[in-house]
């Protein structure tokens, strides 16, 4: 039953309408939770006694940092499925996730810099986490550049898949090497751990925001994968039969 469902929706033709029904739900959920989380974070949560009001950026910073890593894992997962089971949709999902992941990594660095300026007095520290987040952003950009440079979509998906897997194997190595490099060079000049325990409303707000970003990422990936499916399958009968789609002349490489 479950395998049957999976096989059914592994076909782009069947997944397209499903994604169309699902993404608004995820988007609504993301917006609602974001409003709730931001309200909790910006108005309800108390001012931090050490960091003042500036700490409130963590309600965006921490969730996007998590998402940037989780999305890379999700990409590696889809890449593995795409390469082993030769499923077309996996490659499309992988490519649909990449821009969201890159945005999350970028936002994580940006908000981190905004937080670092008042707290540490500097926009940037060569801290292990910052550095590995920067390299993660490079990995995302490399993936996007590679898949965009290859014209044949099948090769682009698989080449991107190999790169995503190699990258996923490398991410922990990079993190630990940078961590070791950092501790050897400048010692623990900056400690990111704040206090022993977090105030309860702060934690709730952060978790709510984290779920909101999860839903946002899923909604964006589903929305984007719909566009990718349409472009890839534009010569297929079921696409030309969709309302509002005019048949395209069959020329150039699909």
């Amino acid at each position, binding site marked *: 039953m479950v395998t049957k469902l999976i096989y059914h929706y592994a076909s782009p033709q069947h997944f397209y309408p499903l994604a169309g029904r699902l993404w608004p739900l995820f988007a609504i959920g993301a917006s609602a939770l974001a409003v709730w989380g931001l309200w909790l974070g910006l108005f309800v949560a108390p001012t931090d006694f050490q960091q003042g009001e500036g700490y409130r950026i963590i309600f965006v910073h921490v969730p996007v940092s998590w998402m940037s890593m989780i999305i890379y894992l999700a990409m590696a997962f889809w890449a593995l499925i795409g*390469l082993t089971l030769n499923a077309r949709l996996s490659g499309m999902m992988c490519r649909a996730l990449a821009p969201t992941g890159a945005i999350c990594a970028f936002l994580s660095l940006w908000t981190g810099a905004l937080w670092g300026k008042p707290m540490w007095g500097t926009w940037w520290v060569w801290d292990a986490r910052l550095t590995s987040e920067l*390299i993660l952003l*490079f*990995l995302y*950009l*490399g993936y996007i*550049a*590679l898949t965009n*440079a*290859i*014209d*044949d979509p*099948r*090769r682009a998906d*698989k*080449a991107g898949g*190999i*790169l995503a*897997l*190699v*990258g996923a*194997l*490398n991410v922990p*190595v*990079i993190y630990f*090497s*940078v961590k*070791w*490099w950092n501790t*050897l060079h400048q010692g623990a000049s900056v400690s990111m751990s704040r206090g022993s325990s977090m105030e309860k409303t702060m934690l709730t707000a952060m978790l709510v925001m984290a779920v909101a970003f999860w839903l946002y990422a899923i909604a964006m990936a589903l929305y984007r994968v719909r566009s990718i499916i349409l472009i890839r399958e534009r010569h297929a009968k079921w696409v030309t039969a969709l309302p509002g789609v005019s048949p395209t002349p069959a020329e150039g490489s699909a």
Partner: protein
Amino acid sequence: MSGFTAVVKRDVVLAMRRKTEVLMAVFFFVVVAALFPLGIGPDLNTLRMVAPGILWVGALLASMLSLNRLFASDYADGTLEQMALAPTGLTQLVAGKVVAHWLLSGFPLVVLAPLLGVQFDLSATALWTLSLSLLIGTPVLSLIGSIGAALTLGVRGGEVLIAMLVLPLYVPTLVFGAGAVQAEVTGLGASAHLSILAAMTLISAVLSPWASTAALRLALES
């Protein structure tokens, strides 16, 4: 003669027939290393401190520059296709090509690095560690680089793309390679760094020919 050694020999002989290309990468390494003191200033204390990093980054870039050569000409004239059809198995032949690439781009740097290190006033033990770290670490550059070269084979703007793909993956090698020399200079001893470098070389030796082969087959299919 097995396919592996045959490919190593063939690639080395081919490169020796056109020595300029091999020498260019080596010369690039020398020029980059010479540029840094001009930018930083001639103070020997500073130079001694930044030397391991500069020489390792130079090695990274020099090794990367020659990656395009790895498969491109064989791909263009159809040799690669014949290799894919050969009974030896493409993975073995790819491993041979990677070894040849290292012999032509990594090994000269190992030999040359102490000479450049002297310009940076590194001590004798530091020079020795520098060479040793390059000897153990540069194979990783060829191995990981071969994945990038295979992925970008025949792709528009491949020369720049390969840098974007490969350089982030080089980070651990750089950290431990330059770190080994740094640790030797500060008196911590380089053995831990060198062991980790060796571990990375061994792991990538197992995994990367396999990934490169998969990427090459993709390039050949399309």
